[in-house]
């Protein structure tokens, strides 16, 4: 669905944000794109959404070139940027004006989302708080039923109950022909949600794996003391004890600690990558 080949992006001659990026994303999945500030996440998703054009390389989305911004492509894409813009309209006017652009928009679905988020459909958009605006936009984005949904920091501004609702809504909305790409600094918000993880740093992809593969190849645990285990790949001291990543030769099912993995990739990329690569290769007999 998304095929990125040797994509580079420069804001100026001296400032390269993305460099020779290769990435493929398939439909039916929810991707979490993680990275520090300035890692290139927003630049990457804006290249995918067609609001920035690659300096070099190519980006194919749903067999379209996003930079051409063809109408048929835009009808299948919904992009929720970090700072949501909502026009000076009432909610009903907003629906009347913008819903017709999306052929699969489901107004009933939208009303359900508004009810769940406790947003009054009679309100004026400019009277909403930042969090309410975000909820309204997320609801609209999901109800638009586009094949590609990109959300940049969607959980910013959401209260805790709304974050839970958000996760359930996205999980319910995913279909085999749909791809959801979410970026977030708040790693724990994506924990239960995503199926695939992409970690970026300094314009490069450090990790791109399914959560299932990570879980079957790495073991995440909390211990009272630092580990002496030879299979230890990474550990750090946290409030609850020592959180550790170990090799998982038995493929024990366990919960991926995305935050720990993210730190491990930034601090010790080579060891984690090698562990994942070695584990994924079948042993020769």
């Amino acid at each position, binding site marked *: 669905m998304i095929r990125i080949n040797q994509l580079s992006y420069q804001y100026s001659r001296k400032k390269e944000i993305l460099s020779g990026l290769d990435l493929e994303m398939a439909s039916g999945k929810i991707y979490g794109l993680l990275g520090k500030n300035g890692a290139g996440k927003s630049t990457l998703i804006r290249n995918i959404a067609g609001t920035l054009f690659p300096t070099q390389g190519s980006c194919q989305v749903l067999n379209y070139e996003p930079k051409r911004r063809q*109408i048929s492509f835009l009808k299948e894409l*919904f*992009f929720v*940027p970090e700072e*949501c*813009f909502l026009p000076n309209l009432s909610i009903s006017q907003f629906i009347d004006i913008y819903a017709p652009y*999306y052929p699969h928009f489901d107004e009933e679905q939208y009303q359900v989302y508004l009810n769940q988020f406790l947003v009054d459909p009679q309100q004026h958009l400019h009277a909403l708080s930042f969090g309410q605006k975000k909820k309204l936009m997320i609801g609209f984005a999901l109800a638009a039923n586009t094949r590609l949904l990109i959300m940049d920091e969607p959980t910013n501004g959401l209260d805790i109950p709304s974050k839970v609702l958000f996760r359930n809504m996205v999980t319910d909305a995913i279909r085999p022909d749909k791809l959801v790409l979410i970026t977030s600094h708040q790693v724990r918000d994506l924990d239960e949600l995503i199926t695939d993880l992409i970690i970026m740093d300094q314009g490069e992809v450090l990790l791109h794996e399914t959560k299932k593969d990570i879980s079957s190849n790495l073991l995440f645990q909390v211990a009272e003391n630092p580990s002496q285990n030879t299979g230890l790949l990474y550990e750090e001291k946290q409030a609850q004890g020592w959180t550790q990543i170990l090799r998982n030769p038995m493929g024990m099912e366990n919960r991926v600690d995305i935050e720990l993995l993210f730190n491990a990739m930034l601090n010790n990329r080579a060891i984690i990558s090698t562990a994942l690569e070695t584990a994924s290769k079948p042993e020769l007999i």
Partner: protein
Amino acid sequence: MSWTSVQLLVDRQFKEHARLYYISLLLLAGLLSFMFLLIHNWRDSFSGAVENGVFLIGLFLSGGLFTNSMFKEFSNKPEGIWLLNIPAGSFEKLLSAVLLSAVAFLAVYLGVFFLIDGLYLSFSDQERGVFEIFQNGFHEFIYLYLIFNGLILLGRVTFIKHSFLKTMVLIIAGVILLNLFNNAMLEYMIPDLNVTSSMPFNSFQFRHLGENIHVLLPSSARASFMPVLWVLLPVALWGITWLKIKEKEI
């Protein structure tokens, strides 16, 4: 191109700025009334068709500001991304802006102007008739407004901040340069003439034996190339604006 999409875009632009547009309409009516009142009170100080001046000031001032409200989303990143991602073509987005800022604006402006002019005539002791736009080629200023509209729209999609001011500075600089170039060409072609004033594509004036002599371009020459200029120039400017929207990155 889809007309439904253009209609939705026009509807979107109008509804999102409806309050501003209604207030501006009242302001325009107030401004025109004020200018008519002014020329009425000082009617002995003004000579000639002063209503022509009122018409032009109102047209270019309000038209420029109104046109500048199109694509205002591009001066703000989240709004710009929102506009670019609306599932409509760049041409449809441009066409909706032109329909509103050129066609609809002119219709509304002419309506308001004639209404205020009519009211002014009915309440004053003026002997003239209703303002005639097609007299002495005055309607050519309407074509000039279309060029002006193209320039403001182009400035809107080119400059991120203070686009109106920057565009106006460039337009004024352009007009001054065109006049200087025109004078230089006249002096080059007719070196012995003492040219006192000139208007590109129109006329020039020179002094001869103490008298001012006004030379007008033959009407046949104007008739042959002016329509081309009036049509081609705005279309070219809208065309460049369309390309700029297509290439816009935010």
